[in-house]
């Protein structure tokens, strides 16, 4: 309940700020961005985050699960380790490195975001499966479940909440990182922030930053709800 109130207040502040700035007559020598422009860039932002995140899920979940399979465990350390190192590099640096390699444009922005979003998904998929109590797997095996049955009936349901938590973390981080994607030619709310920085109009920065923050809060809440819905009932009861 308390958490919900905090979320509503935060959301109110961010949306309120956006509306307040947008309806001002002028910001120094410029007009504020229109509602249409904010809407358009929000949509671009969501599109980038969405595509990057879907790619991260598409690669991260299977890869994370794959390295938990018997015989594949030797790949777990190098793969999860590489992803870990990737995460420790500042997001700005990842994007800066990607620019010369992939060139400018929407696609490079997506790829930079994808690389940055991959780790939490990969790591949680790996941990979700790997941290299941071995006794559970042993008793499943001992009762005659096949490998596929163990994977579908036991491992995936038990790992699901952990994997979902990884996707949620990754998405929220990605919303923030995506503001930097404009540097390599991406679109989105980052563009408004960048304009504000160039023109040294703080309120314009707010006009881009506030909806970004609101978007992060909304996605976090939605995915949090989804995570709860995906958690098997026996794991929430105690």
């Amino acid at each position, binding site marked *: 309940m308390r958490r919900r109130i905090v979320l509503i207040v935060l959301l109110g502040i961010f949306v309120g700020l956006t509306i307040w700035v947008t309806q001002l007559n002028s910001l120094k020598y410029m007009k504020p961005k229109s509602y249409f422009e904010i809407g358009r860039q929000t949509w671009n932002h969501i599109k980038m985050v969405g595509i990057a995140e879907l790619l991260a899920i598409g690669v991260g979940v299977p890869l994370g699960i794959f390295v938990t399979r018997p015989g594949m465990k030797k790949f777990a350390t190098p793969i999860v380790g590489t992803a870990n190192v990737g995460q420790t590099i500042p997001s700005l640096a990842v994007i800066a490195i990607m620019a010369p390699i992939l060139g400018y444009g929407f696609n490079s922005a997506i790829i930079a975001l994808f690389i940055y979003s991959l780790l939490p998904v990969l790591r949680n998929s790996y941990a979700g499966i790997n941290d299941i*109590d071995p*006794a*559970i*797997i*042993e*008793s*499943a*095996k*001992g*009762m*005659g*479940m*096949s490998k596929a*049955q163990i994977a579908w009936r*036991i491992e995936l*349901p*038990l790992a699901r909440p952990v994997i979902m938590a990884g996707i949620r973390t990754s998405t929220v981080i990605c919303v923030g990182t995506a503001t930097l994607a404009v540097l390599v030619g991406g679109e989105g709310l980052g563009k408004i922030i960048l304009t504000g920085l160039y023109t040294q109009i703080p309120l314009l920065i707010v006009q881009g930053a506030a909806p970004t923050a609101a978007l992060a809060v909304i996605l976090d809440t939605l995915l949090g709800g989804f995570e709860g819905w995906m958690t*098997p*009932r*026996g*794991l929430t*009861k*105690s």
Partner: protein
Amino acid sequence: MIKLENVKKIYADGTEAVKGVNFEVDDGEFCVLLGPSGCGKTTTMKMINRLIPITEGSIYIDGTDNKEMDENELRREMGYAIQEIGLFPHMTVGENISTVPTLKNWSSDKKENRAKELLKLMGLEPNEFIDKYPSELSGGQRQRVGVARSLGADPPIMLMDEPFGAIDPITRDRLQDEFLKIQAEIQKTIVFVTHDINEATKMGDKIALLKDGQLIQYSPPAELLAAPKNKFVRDFVGSDRTLKSLRLMKVEEAMKKSPRLVTEDEPLDEVKDLMKKEDVNYLIVVKNGNELKGWINQEDVQEVSSGTVADAMIEDTGAAEVGTSLADALTLMLERDVANLPVINEENKLQGLLTFHDLQSLIGETYTESGGKHPGVSQ
């Protein structure tokens, strides 16, 4: 029937975990694999359902080599319960118990009936527990559900790896008793792993004692205690093995079936003569229909000159009920400071007499059979 023939387990690094073990478990028999940690008992058990592949030798299940069976089919025919229980936390108690029935595609009605039946057998109220999740259960309840799950599809064979190992001693004792009662009813062929000699002697029909991957002795508990094959067995069963074997035996196995007795209303004169003639200094007093009343001693008879037995007897000197272990009977004797203990049934009817002398010779036998080389014990 399970038959192990020269079974070996050698790991890739050359470690020999099991070094050629041979033994048989008959149908309906409770076989305990006992030994210190690292002796290969769990490895041996897991080779029966092929959770660990056999390196050499064969294990036959009712005459079929288990290597020739599909491993999942093989495992579904054997209940499997482990110390860590490993209940599936995302499934209800009912779903957990129905694991193997689900794999065997039973109808949901059949599964539910079976789950309820098993909960009842385990002493858990079916309607209260069937829809609960493992996280809502206590340790003892989880263990019960774990055993119920291993019995899910009514397999003829049960493999149990220290299933009562992780619970407090009082609950464990109760679960052991309950399980023995259940086993008397369901008559499964059981292979049960433990490192606890007390659990082994209490539960097993036969005990396979292992050391360093080798079978040292395979015999019924009483024999293992009475006649340890070598120093290792003697040390492993412990210096209190006499007390342990007393715990295994019941009073009716050691008592005299027809002790001398007199009835309450006999005149004392006759009793005096009888005692003199038989050269005994005590007699048990009963009422019509063999109901235990008390004792009569020679000294007391001398003091009272006339009357009946009832005037001179000592009432209520304690008695052991049929089914009491010899260890408990001994405790009772020491507590009451008596050398003889009448054995009665639930209706207080005299069944026999247990004397301290009988116990003594029984203990003596234990040591004589084993060679009797225990220091400090006279034979």
